[in-house]
C-alpha cells in the first residue's frame, strides 16, 4: 500500500465530515497557536529582559592589561601598558561577536566648579560609543560629545546626576565650565540616572570626556614616563600629599627633572596606551565567542608567541550573565510546560474522535480486511488519518499563533519576535501527538476481526 493511496484515503475520510474534522483539530489548533503566540511573546520578553540586563552590564566585557612584576613584586592587574586605542578599533572591526567598543582612560582627581569641589568615583576618558556599550545613549539633557571631539581633544564633558547635585545644586550645568586639574571642561550633557551597580558603586558619580583630552591634558604625565606606577612621583599632587603624611616612605632616589627640563628633553613616545577597553557582546549568548575572538585578535596584535602568556585579561560579568541566562531559561521552560499541557489536551481530543471514527467505520474496516487489507494497512491508514488531522491542526495553529502574536504586538504593544524554532517544534510536536494519540485507535482498528466487523451494525 503506497503512501499516496494511504493519504488519499485519509483525506477522503476526513473530507466526509468536514465540520467534525475541524472541531477535532480545534484542540491542536488552539494548542499550537498558544505555543507559538507564547513563544513569540516569550521571545520578545526575553529580548526585552536581555536589553534590561545589558543595561546593567550583563553583556559587557572588560579588557584590562596584564600584570607586571618588578623584581618579583607583582604590581597587580592593569599595571602593564599593552592596550592601545588601535586595539579598540581593531576589536570592533574584526570581532563579529562584539557590538560596540570603548577605550577608557581613567583619572581620579578633583573636579571644581565655582567654590565647590568633588572627587567623582569615575572620571573616564573615552569615546561616544561608551554610552552605547553601557546602554546609556539617552541623555537627560544636552548631548554627548562626538568622535570629532575625541580627535580634537575638545575640552567638553558629560556628567552624571550625582555630580550635578554635588557641584551645581539647583543650577543647570549645561554650558558651564568645570575644572579638572586646572583644565576647564565645558559641560555639554547630563546622563540619565542609573543608580548603584550590583556592587553598590554609584554609577551616577561619573564624568565622561574624550579620552584624548583626559589622556593628553589631564593625566599627561603618564605619557612621557612610560609606566603609570612610576608617574606617581613628586609631580603628582596626590602622592605628594601622601608623602607628607608618611614622609619617610617616599624617598626620591633620583634627580627629578623640573617641568621645563622635561619639556626641553621629552622622552621618546612609543605608543599611547589606554587603561582598559570596554566592549559589549552582540548578545548574552555571544559572550563566550566574543571573549575568544578578542583574545585571538589581541594576541595577534601584540605579537605574542604560542608559548607566551596573555599580556591582557578579558573579564565578563559572569554573575549577571548567569542571572540573565537562568531567567530566560526559566521563561522558556514555563512556556514549554503550558504548551505541553495544551497539546496533550488536544491530543486526547484527537484520540477520542479517532476512537469514535473507528467504531463508526467498523463495517468499512471489515470490508477492507475482507478484500485483502492487512492489519498493518488498517493501522497505517488510521495512523495517517490522525497525523494528517494533527498536521492540519498544526498548520492552522501556526497561522493562528502568528496572527495573534501580530495582534498582541500591534494592539498591546508587547514586544514579540518571530520564533522559527517554535514553528518547527510545533509541526514536529503535532505530528508526534498524532502518532502517540492516534496509535491506540489505529491499533484497535487493526485488531478487529473481519467477520465481526462486517456484521457490525
Amino acid at each position, binding site marked *: 500500500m503506497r503512501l499516496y493511496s494511504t493519504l488519499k484515503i485519509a483525506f477522503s475520510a476526513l473530507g*466526509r465530515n468536514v465540520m467534525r474534522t475541524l472541531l477535532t483539530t480545534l484542540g491542536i489548533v488552539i494548542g499550537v497557536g498558544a505555543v507559538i503566540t507564547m513563544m513569540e511573546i516569550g521571545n520578545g520578553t526575553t529580548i526585552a529582559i536581555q536589553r534590561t540586563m545589558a543595561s546593567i552590564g550583563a553583556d559587557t566585557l572588560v579588557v584590562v592589561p596584564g600584570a607586571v612584576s618588578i623584581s618579583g613584586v607583582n604590581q597587580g592587574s592593569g599595571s602593564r601598558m599593552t592596550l592601545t586605542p588601535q586595539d579598540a578599533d581593531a576589536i570592533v572591526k574584526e570581532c563579529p561577536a562584539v557590538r560596540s567598543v570603548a577605550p577608557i582612560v581613567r583619572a581620579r582627581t578633583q573636579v571644581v566648579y565655582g567654590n565647590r569641589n568633588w572627587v567623582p568615583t569615575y572620571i573616564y576618558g573615552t569615546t561616544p560609543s561608551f554610552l552605547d556599550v553601557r546602554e546609556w545613549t539617552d541623555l537627560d539633557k544636552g548631548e554627548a560629545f562626538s568622535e570629532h571631539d575625541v580627535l580634537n581633544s575638545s575640552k567638553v564633558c558629560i556628567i552624571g546626576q550625582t555630580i550635578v547635585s554635588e557641584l551645581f545644586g539647583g543650577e543647570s550645568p549645561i554650558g558651564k565650565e568645570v575644572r579638572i586639574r586646572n583644565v576647564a571642561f565645558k559641560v555639554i550633557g547630563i546622563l540619565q540616572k542609573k543608580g548603584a551597580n550590583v556592587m553598590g558603586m554609584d554609577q551616577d558619580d561619573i564624568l565622561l570626556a574624550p579620552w584624548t583630552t583626559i589622556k593628553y591634558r589631564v593625566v599627561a604625565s603618564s605619557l612621557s614616563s612610560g609606566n603609570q606606577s612610576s608617574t606617581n612621583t613628586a609631580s603628582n599632587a596626590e602622592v605628594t600629599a601622601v608623602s607628607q603624611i608618611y614622609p619617610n616612605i617616599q624617598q626620591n632616589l633620583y634627580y627629578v627633572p623640573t617641568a621645563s627640563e622635561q619639556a626641553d628633553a621629552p622622552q621618546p613616545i612609543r605608543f599611547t596606551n589606554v587603561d582598559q577597553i570596554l566592549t559589549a557582546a552582540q548578545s548574552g549568548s555571544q559572550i563566550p565567542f566574543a571573549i575568544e575572538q578578542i583574545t585571538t585578535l589581541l594576541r595577534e596584535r601584540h605579537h605574542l608567541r604560542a608559548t607566551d602568556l596573555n599580556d591582557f585579561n578579558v573579564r565578563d560579568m559572569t554573575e549577571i550573565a548567569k542571572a540573565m541566562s537562568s531567567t530566560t531559561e526559566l521563561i522558556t521552560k514555563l512556556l514549554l510546560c503550558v504548551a505541553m499541557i495544551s497539546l496533550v489536551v488536544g491530543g486526547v481530543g484527537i484520540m477520542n474522535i479517532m476512537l469514535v471514527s473507528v467504531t463508526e467505520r467498523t463495517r468499512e474496516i*471489515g470490508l477492507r480486511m475482507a*478484500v485483502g487489507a492487512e492489519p498493518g494497512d488498517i493501522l497505517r491508514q488510521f495512523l495517517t488519518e490522525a497525523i494528517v488531522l494533527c498536521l492540519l491542526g498544526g498548520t492552522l495553529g501556526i497561522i493562528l499563533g502568528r496572527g495573534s502574536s501580530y495582534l498582541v504586538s500591534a494592539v498591546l504593544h508587547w514586544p514579540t519576535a518571530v520564533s522559527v524554532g517554535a514553528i518547527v517544534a510545533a509541526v514536529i510536536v503535532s505530528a508526534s501527538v498524532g502518532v502517540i494519540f492516534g496509535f491506540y485507535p489505529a491499533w484497535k482498528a487493526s485488531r478487529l476481526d*473481519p467477520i465481526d466487523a462486517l456484521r457490525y451494525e
Partner: protein
Amino acid sequence: MDLIELRNIHKTYSLGEVDLPVLKGVSLNIARGELVALMGASGSGKSTLMNILGCLDHPTSGEYWLDGHEISWLTATERARLRNRVIGFVFQSFNLLPRTTALENVLMPLIYTKENLNEHQKKQRATELLRRVGLADRIHHQPSQLSGGEQQRVAIARSLVNNPRVLLADEPTGNLDSRTSEEILEMFQQFNSVDGITVILVTHDPGVAKHARRTIHIKDGLIDGTEQPVHEGIA
C-alpha cells in the same frame, strides 16, 4: 487436485464454560470452474463454513486445501494477502463505501494488492469490469444514486477486480426483488461460464440454489447431501 478441498473441518466456539460446536466434520470438494450453491437454514453452520472458505476464519481442526496449499493455520496477515489475491466477496448488503463513486469502490481492493500496476492500468481494469456488469454510464455515481441491483453489480465488479479464482457470494440476492435477483444470478452464471471463475453461492433460498450446477446442503454442521438440479441457466 480440486481447487477447494475441505477435510474433516471442525469449528467450535467456546462460550465461557460451554463449547458450542458449529461444524462437526465437514468434508467437500469444489473443482475449478464449478458453480456451487451452499444451502442451509439459518443456524445450520453455513455462515461459519463460508467464513472458513473465504479465509476470514480458520477451523478448529481439519485441513483446508486451497489451490494446492494447506491454509488452515495461516496468520491474519497471510490470510489477508490470500483473500486479496484468490477470493472475491459479494455480500447481501452490498457493503459499498458511502460517498465514494462506483469506480473508486471497484478500485478499492487494488489499493492493497501486491501486483505492480500503475494508476492507469488499475482504472482501465475497473472501468472494463463496470462495463461488463452493465454500468459503463454510471461509473461516477455514488451508491446513494444507484438502485439495489446496480449497487450489487458494483459489488460484483469490485469482487472481480483482482482476478480471483473463487467468488464467494453470501445471500447476494437477499436484499433484491425477484427480477433483479434473476439478473444478478445470470451475471454470476456468465462470469462462471465465460471467465471460468469458480462461484460459490451461499443461500437459504432454493430459487437461488437452482441456478447452480450443484447444491450442497448443510444441516446442523454436517453435509446433508449434494444434488445436481436440472440445469436451466444460460450456459
